[in-house]
Structure formats: C-alpha cells, structure tokens
C-alpha cells in the first residue's frame, strides 16, 4: 500500500544523476587493544586527545563522536584518526555540514543516555551552533530540575598563530564562560589533553573543550593517569614576584616569558588555568597573596574577556594583598585580523614581559 506510494523522494536529480546514498565508507576493523595508552609515551597534543577519545570509547559504549570530516579523514587536524576503523560508523559519525544540528542531535542522543562528543571543525564555526549550546545544552539540567543530564563534550580547536583565513583563529571562550550550565576547559599540553578530555567526557555536565590548534603538533610525555580533577589550575612555574595567568596556547608563551624574566632577576609564577568555568580561584588567590602582582593574558579580545573577570574576582577576594593594579595582556578589541597582522594582535613573549614590567612599576 501507501508505504511505497508515499516514497516520494525523487530517485534521480534534475540533471539525471542518481543521488549517492549516505552509506558509511567500508571499514577495516583493526585488532582491539585493551587500552589506548598503557604506559608513558611521547605524544603530540593531537595524538594525546586521540588516545583520550579512544580510551573513553573503550570504557563506555555510549560515547559517540559527531562532526564534520571526523571519519575517513580523521578530522582536519587528524584528532579522530583511525577511530572510524576501530569503532564503526555508529560511533564515529560523519555529519552533514550543519553545526546547529551537530549540537542539536547530540541533545537528542543525550536524552537516550548517550555521551556525545561533538567536534566543531574550527572555533569560528561554532556560532551557527551557538543557540543550541546556550539555549538548550546549557539549560536542560536546570530546566528539568536535575531530571535530564547533558553529558555532551564539544571539542573546539581554538586560537590563532597558524596564518589562517578568517574564522579559523578565534578565541570564543568568554561567550561560554558567561553561560551558566557549561563547563569550559582549555588545555595547553599533551598530558592535560589526554587526561582532561577523558574527564570531560565522563562528566555529567556539558563541557566546552578548547584545544590550542597551534600546539597540536607539540609533543610531550603522556601517562595513562587521569591526574588532578579537571577544574583545578596548575602552577607551571613557581615564582614570587608576579603571578602570570594563562591558558591554552599562551601557557607555553607565558612559561618562556617567565624564563626570560628570570634572566633579569624577576621571579614569575605561571598558572595554567585549565578550567575556565569554574575557575580555580583558590589557586589564583594563593598565588596572588604570595606575589601581590597579577598579569592575566589571553588571545581573546580584552573587553568583556576573562582577564577582566579574573582581576575583578581577585580584587574582591584579596585587594589588601595587591601591590599594584593588575594588568591584562590580551588580543585587541578587533575582529580577528589578516594573517600578516596577527603577530601584532596576539600576545607574545615581549608583550607579556612588558605586562610584567608594568605591574612591577618599571614602565608605564
């Protein structure tokens, strides 16, 4: 009967070609391995996330990946490489090009008890999915008084420094730290990338997971341990004169700046926030109470950025310990500039040292 007659989808296109069905590519199963990482290995940051994703998928059959080009290609940054072959097309889902749908269908999957991991191909492409993130993902637990959880991880390669075209170098994290209901993570090194992606996926809250794309190919030692809770900050370099707070790609720059400052006899304590919501203010406060001077750096624009928020919170909590007005070293309040201008926009080692000098009263 009508089941056949209402199949009204045209069998051929206007030009006579036959539509190609959305069948998954053939997959060659690889031999299963018990764990993605058995002991300490040197991995790039991208490979560390891949290992973390793989371990999470081995641990929990409800973990599914959604995104554009994440299957056969392994993602434009190859972060999901080989996962389609191992887990198949029901767990590594190449989606049509629609970010709102990538997030919105993840919501529906979460209704069924899945733990979706969405890949947004580039930071600048997250905005078509913004409504689903802030109006739906972030609110369901609150809206339903805890009845419905949204254990969705949204992976976002972020930040500049790769000479890219527009919309490929953005730092949109403050939009999400301003949205309650979301947790926001930004990793800086392979070990944290591995440990924190696993913690993010295991979290019953939605997590925006920002990956520093210009550090994807930096290698470092990675152990299989989950490490500290993902909302804790990390002191990268201990110091006594100035606290320098960074996250994502700028942690490396800040660490280099601390080394350079040490040559001039200035002791800079570098803190890698790791979690941008919540922020580990206990760690921040402890450092500022020790140094009395605070510099915050990020690639994102200054106005309305995290630097202002952190400085306000620190000022409320330990104003009496501050020796000088805190300083922000950030991107300018501009749309992201052309590649040949981005070195002027991005905080670099010299601008961080300039910030350190200013908070020490050595420059105006």
């Amino acid at each position, binding site marked *: 009967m009508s089941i056949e007659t209402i199949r009204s989808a045209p069998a051929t296109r206007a030009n006579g070609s036959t539509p190609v069905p959305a069948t998954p590519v053939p997959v060659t199963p690889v031999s299963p391995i018990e764990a993605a990482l058995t002991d300490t290995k040197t991995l790039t940051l991208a490979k560390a996330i891949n290992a973390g994703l793989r371990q999470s998928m081995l641990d929990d059959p409800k973990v599914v990946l959604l995104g554009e080009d994440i299957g056969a290609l392994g993602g434009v940054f190859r972060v999901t490489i080989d996962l389609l072959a191992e887990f198949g097309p029901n767990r590594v889902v190449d989606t049509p090009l629609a970010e*709102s749908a990538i997030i919105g269908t993840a*919501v*529906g999957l979460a209704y069924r008890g899945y733990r979706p991991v969405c890949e947004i191909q580039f930071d600048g492409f997250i905005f078509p999915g913004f409504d689903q993130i802030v109006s739906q993902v972030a609110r369901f637990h609150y*809206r339903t*008084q805890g009845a419905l959880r949204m254990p969705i991880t949204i992976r976002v390669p972020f930040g500049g420094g790769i000479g890219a075209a527009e919309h490929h170098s953005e730092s949109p994290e403050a939009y999400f730290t301003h949205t309650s209901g979301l947790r926001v993570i930004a990793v800086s090194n392979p070990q944290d990338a591995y440990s924190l992606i696993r913690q993010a996926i295991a979290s019953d809250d939605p997590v925006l997971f920002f990956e520093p794309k210009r550090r994807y190919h930096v290698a470092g030692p990675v152990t299989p341990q989950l490490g500290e809770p993902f909302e804790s900050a990390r002191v990268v370099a201990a110091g006594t004169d100035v606290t320098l707070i960074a996250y994502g790609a700028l942690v490396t720059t800040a660490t280099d700046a601390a080394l350079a400052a040490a040559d001039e006899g200035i002791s800079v304590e570098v803190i890698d926030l790791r979690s941008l*919501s919540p922020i*580990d203010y206990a760690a921040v406060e402890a450092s500022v109470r020790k140094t009395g001077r605070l510099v915050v750096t990020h690639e994102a624009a200054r106005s309305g950025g995290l630097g202002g928020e952190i400085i306000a919170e620190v000022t409320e909590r330990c104003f009496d310990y501050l020796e000088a007005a805190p300083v922000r070293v950030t991107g300018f309040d501009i749309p992201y500039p052309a590649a040949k201008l981005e070195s002027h926009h991005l905080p670099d080692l010299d601008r961080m040292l300039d910030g350190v000098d200013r908070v020490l009263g050595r420059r105006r």
Partner: protein
Amino acid sequence: MHTVHTGETPDILLQLLSPEGMRLADADLDPWVAEVTGADLAALYQDMVVVRRIDAEATALQRQGELGLWPPLLGQEAAQIGSGRALRADDFVFSSYRENAVAWCRGIAPTDILRVWRGTAQSGWDPLVYRMATPSIIIGAQTLHATGWAMGAVFDGADSVAVAYFGDGATSEGDVSEALVFAASFQAPVVFFCQNNHWAISEPVGLQTRFGIAGRAPGFGIPSLRIDGNDVLAVMAATRLALNRARTGGGPTFIEAVTYRMGPHTTADDPTRYRPAAELEEWAKKDPILRLRRLLDSLGLFTPELESETQALADATAAELRAGCIGLPDPEPLTVLANVYATPHAGVDRQRAEYAAYLASFEPTGGKV
C-alpha cells in the same frame, strides 16, 4: 498517489471525515483506522472535549491572574489527539509549547502542564518519565533533538520513534531544515508533525512559505502527507502510517496537518488587529469536535450517556486543574541556584552559599532585636 514532488503548491488534502461528519474513503489511510471501534471514536470525542475544556479553564485562570501566560490550542484538538493517541508508550515526543493535548495523551497531569505558565518551574514534568520532552520555546529547536534521539534509536536497534511537533512558523527556522537533512541522511525513525495553523502570531503562513509546506519535504528526500488536521481519523491514520514506516526501517516522514488556530497566539496576543473575522467564521464550520460528534450521531453512538459522561469528565478535569493550579506552591528561594550543574561547580556553589547567608540574615530573631 498522494505524493507531492512537483514544483506546484500541493492542494491534495487527505480526509476521512468531512466537516459535515461524513465518513470518506481513502485507500491509503483507511487501513490504518480499520480497527477503530465505536468505543474508540467515543474516546477520541471525550479526549477532544476534555482538552478543549482544559484550554478554556487555563485561559480563564490567566485572565484571573493565576497564570502569567497561556498558549491556547483551540481548534487544533484533532491534530493533537489524533496523533497523540497513535503513539506507543515507548515513542518519544519533542514538542513546541502548544501541544497540551499531546501532553494529555502522554498521561501528564493537567496541573503539571500549568507549572511553567504559573512560573513555578521551567519544566512541568520529568521528560524521561512521560517520554515527552520539555516543550521547546525556541521555535524549531526540538526538531533536532527528535532527530538525534531517532539516530540513537538506529544505533540501539530499537523500533521506537521520535515525533517532532512544530508549527508553520517553525518551518522557516534553520534548525528545521537541518533536522530534515540529518533525518534523511541517517534514515532516522522520526515523524515530523507540522501543525499548519495558518498563523505565527500575526504572520500568515504565506509569509513563511511561497510553496506548500508538505511540498518541501521531498526535496530533502523525505516523503510527505498533507492531511486535514481537523479530521481526527485522518490524523490518526497518517500518524500510524508514518510511525509504521519509521519502525520498519523506512526512515522519516513529514506530515502537514492543515488546521487553524481559532484563538490568539497566547493570552497576550490580540488577533483582531491582524486577522479577518470572516476567516475565523469559515474555519468555525470545520470544527474538529463538531464533525466527530456528527459522525457519532449518524452512527447512533452519540448517546445521552456519552454526552453526560463527557461533560462530567470535562467538569471534573477543569475543577482539578483550577484547584491544582492555585495550590501549586511557590518554589523555595534557594532552588534558584539548584541544579545549574549536575556535579559541584565552585562558582555557582559560592554564590549559593553567599545568597543563603544573605537570606538567613533576614530570618526572624525570635523576638530579640
């Protein structure tokens, strides 16, 4: 063939019940209501009368200041009851905010439906218990949730179906188009149930689309049906047909139920500013309850007992609704900071502690100054 895949605006309207209450034959739809008994028809009639009464009582409660707002479904009873009663318990509904009759079919207490409109909660019920999502206020957003849920049904090998309810206005939203793309690509078991009630607040359906709504779906690779949404039998048959396709691996189906919003968009709206009275009169003749009553009458089934039973049920439901609404307790102040996260979040936890201390500073001192 009731298909729509030409470049012309579709004008086929599937019906099983004329406005005069005459049972019409339709070879495609008839098999899906072949087993509907006289008792079933009476039950559908009762459902429609009761949800219309709930609607009227809620409107009155809003006028009396007991509800902040109410979105009436007046005129859309057949579209919602016919589809809602076609669903299986393990199917899942993702709706807009006007599907109060669907909520009734899912077994949700009418008082719970009122919670969000009285402002005591952002969700009136636990979506996982009733398998009906919190109604979406963002237009069209729920169609993606339905599609994702249905993709999961494929992954799980389940034969349950997601039903996305939305209106003619929603078809202009990008999320709806994205949902149609995803549903088609993944052959997700989802029924897109569009109630074309002709008005999106003040905007007529012709502003949303130059082309018939049902005619869009085939362009996405999704078969569609355009049915008389005021005909409860046609709605039930079409929904069952679509559900069956979904359950048996046939993928998504799009249903345009052509109906009419007889009331305002919400109690805050004034349709006399934009809607011709003649149009309302025309649609009043197509009333969904009246035509089923006429059918029952012609079959000798509209008995005084049915009439009085239905009246009693409607009265009792309305009384329960009124008492339940007025009796809804205001939420405790500190719940304003509850459940923002599923796991402890230092920032919100700190604000909660601060606000608790602030509130405590106003507590009675037991007579001491």
